[in-house]
């Protein structure tokens, strides 16, 4: 087998075209920025034929160039994708093959977009997201990785080789390298080259997304539960409770994050069982949250409340006990038949420390919102009605704070992704052969000055996911401010 080039046969005419378009786009954007300092402010111009034009002259011309160049670039990109999917194996190079391999993701993305745009008026805030370009781009980037994680993690699709398998002779080889003869593999190429242990980088990046997509949103959700459960009373009651909790939150925030990770995630600390106890403490909060949430709502209807609470609490309690009871750690008390699942201790430690680092910030945000909202009229009305304090906090204040919280949730998933990467970057928590992006970047950076390609794909993957979440948060903020 021959090695692949980046764009294969179609590159001969597509690449120059694409390059010219991109250069045109960049130039016209720079021109526009520079000219905006000198050109007259844009006003409506009346033309000789009696019509009105918003932008005329040089400035308007450049605006047109930008638009056209952007559209052509987009069309060319789609063309790369379609040719890559349609042409036979290897004809469209590495990029074409990657497009082909990710076909299920593209189909799912197109389906989601088509459905969402069709019904966007009925979908509330989520539907409004499709009115903003920024939000749509961000949502696309996020959903891309979500689908990659689902297909790769749930169905073992998309990957081309075993992410832990080594093929001798492919150590640090450049992208598109052919697998030597005599190896029994389905895909005869390493699409993005081999890393320093001769594993396929493309499959590792794909598999790494599963870890990130599984941990980051869930950890953020837990951090939000902790932050909300503590932040609402702190902001609502104020006083001593607020002082103590705020001091504790500031104490955690005063730690440099990396020092905290080094103190919590090393194998020695894991051996003492502190992370297990922290897990036991932190994971109580979701149970408390749901118990109080439901109890305060249905307190007056015991016939409804009691069965509901029994069902919810027993399910959550079982999940909680199975989660914290782990073989090989200090907390191992459940009998085997009752222990529903065991998660990898490395992942649990990483999860706990990320929740621990995130919750003080969430606490501060929720506390600030509660401080602001407790003076509102509807809170006074509820107090006059004689509602309980937890009802007011969870069913009056919390729903009205949802806008900023949803936006912050998106941003915080991105931040959690960065934190996970940081942990991997310092080689903490997850085992070194784990394909998550932080660890892969860490592996790649050690030889960065000699071979650059192993570190770049996970770096770009992480960047695109965090960027997507940031853009999504921006789009949501923009749209939620519009009402």
């Amino acid at each position, binding site marked *: 087998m021959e090695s692949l080039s980046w764009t294969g046969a179609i590159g001969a005419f597509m690449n120059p075209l694409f390059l010219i378009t991109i250069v045109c786009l960049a130039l016209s*954007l720079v021109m*526009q*920025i520079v000219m*905006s300092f000198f050109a007259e*402010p844009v006003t409506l111009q009346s033309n000789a034929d009696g019509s009105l034009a918003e932008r005329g002259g040089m400035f308007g011309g450049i*605006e047109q160039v*930008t638009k056209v160049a952007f559209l052509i670039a987009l069309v060319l990109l789609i063309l790369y994708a379609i040719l890559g999917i349609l042409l036979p194996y290897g004809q469209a190079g590495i990029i074409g093959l990657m497009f082909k391999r990710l076909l299920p993701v593209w189909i799912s993305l197109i389906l989601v977009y088509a459905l969402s745009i069709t019904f966007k008026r009925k979908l509330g805030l989520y539907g409004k997201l499709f009115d903003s370009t920024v939000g749509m781009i961000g949502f696309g980037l996020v959903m891309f990785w979500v689908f990659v994680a689902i297909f790769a993690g749930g169905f073992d699709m998309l990957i081309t080789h075993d992410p832990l398998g080594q093929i001798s002779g492919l150590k640090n080889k450049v992208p598109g390298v052919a697998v030597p003869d005599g190896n029994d593999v389905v895909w005869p190429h390493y699409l993005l080259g081999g890393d320093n242990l001769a594993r396929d980088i493309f499959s590792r990046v794909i598999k790494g997304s599963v870890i990130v997509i599984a941990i980051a949103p869930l950890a953020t959700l837990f951090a939000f539960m902790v932050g909300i459960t503590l932040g609402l009373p702190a902001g609502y009651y104020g006083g001593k409770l607020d002082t103590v909790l705020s*001091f504790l939150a*500031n*104490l955690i*925030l*005063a*730690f*440099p*994050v*990396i*020092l905290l990770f*080094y*103190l*919590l995630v*090393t194998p*020695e*600390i894991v*051996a*003492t069982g*502190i992370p297990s106890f922290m897990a036991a403490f932190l994971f109580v909060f979701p149970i408390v949250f749901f118990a109080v949430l439901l109890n305060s709502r249905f307190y007056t209807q015991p016939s409804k409340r009691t069965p509901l609470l029994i069902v919810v609490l027993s399910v959550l309690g079982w999940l909680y006990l199975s989660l914290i009871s782990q073989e090989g750690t200090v907390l191992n008390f459940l009998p085997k038949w009752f222990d529903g699942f065991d998660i990898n201790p490395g992942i649990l430690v990483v999860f706990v420390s990320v929740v621990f680092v995130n919750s003080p910030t969430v606490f501060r945000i929720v506390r600030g919102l509660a401080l602001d909202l407790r003076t509102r009229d509807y809170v006074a009305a509820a107090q006059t009605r004689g509602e309980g304090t937890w009802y007011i906090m969870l069913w009056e204040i919390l729903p009205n704070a949802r806008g900023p919280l949803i936006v912050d949730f998106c941003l915080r998933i*991105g931040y959690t992704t*960065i934190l996970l*990467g*940081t942990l991997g*970057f*310092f080689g903490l928590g997850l085992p070194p052969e784990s394909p998550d992006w*932080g660890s892969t*970047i860490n592996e*790649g*950076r050690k030889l*960065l*000055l*000699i071979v*650059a*390609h192993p*570190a*770049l794909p996970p*770096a*770009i993957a*992480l*960047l695109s996911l*965090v*960027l997507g*979440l*940031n*853009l999504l948060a*921006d789009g949501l903020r923009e749209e939620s401010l519009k009402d």
Partner: protein
Amino acid sequence: MGLFILRRLGVMILTAICLTFVVFWLTNLSPNLEKLAKTQGNARMSDDAVVSYLANRGYSQPLPIKYGQWIGILPGYVIEGSDGELRGRCAERGQDPTDAPKFCGVLQGEWGYSTRFKEDVSEIISTRLGHTAKLMGLVMLVMVPGALIIGVLAGMREGSRTDRTLSTFSIISTATPEYVSGVVLIALFGTATFGMKIFKGNANSAMDDATFENFTLPVLTIALYGMGYIARMTRASMTEVMTAQYIRTARLKGVAFRTIVMKHALRNALIAPFTVIMLQFPWLLNGVVIVESLFSYKGFGWTLVEAASTNDIELLLGVSVVSVFVVLATQLISDIGYVFLNPRIRIS
């Protein structure tokens, strides 16, 4: 105002005490001490040897006593070891422990002795902080003006193409953590892969002699991450000011747009970014740790990683005191500075 600062200083000291105690407790857990004994003594020590090693060097005393000794309110230990040697916490090497001063803690200005670098902690921290100060100074020099210019240009005309382009840039820069931008920058400009080998991907030589070649990439890596956030805050503050009544008045008077921006808007728009820049310091500390490890620049962040990975207790405590001080001092400065810059707010 004086009372306010005093109260903040009180909180600061309390935070520092709590925090160092937590660090002290975590580093003095038995598996960590065992690791310390094995890295300092012999990697294949027997369990008994570990116990006597730790007992001889005062590590087996109760935690509060050890902490008191470190603070300097309890007299340092003098222990006759199982090997017959007399060891004292306060004794310099070669000095007879009975002649040494009784107290030697932070209060006496003794920060202890690093087991990793075999040097006094105060010495290590001051030289390493010097290196980091050089890096941070340059980062500030690049980041702050850059971020303010981007933010003001973007916020000047909200919704214009300039605004959209610059905002996109700042979102991308906030979404790129240092370990991603550092890796990408080194791959682009530090290796021959893309044919643009302009800079060095290693800043080891920059500690003695910082040049354009070896220091650009680390400075740029930290500056880029912080820049986007400050720029976005500046933009928000600028757009808010540009919709204010007095700007409209100035426009209606026929003042040139440039004059409005420079004379009327800019001063008011720069109050909020000041706070943001100050609060950005703790985040930069993280960036410093990552970048110094990535570029093997042996500054404060690199010391933190070294101390933490070898469980160098006293160095780690020194490092955490310094970083807590940085975090809380910048908070204090931002609060006070905000009051001075914005006459509408006064702390009673």
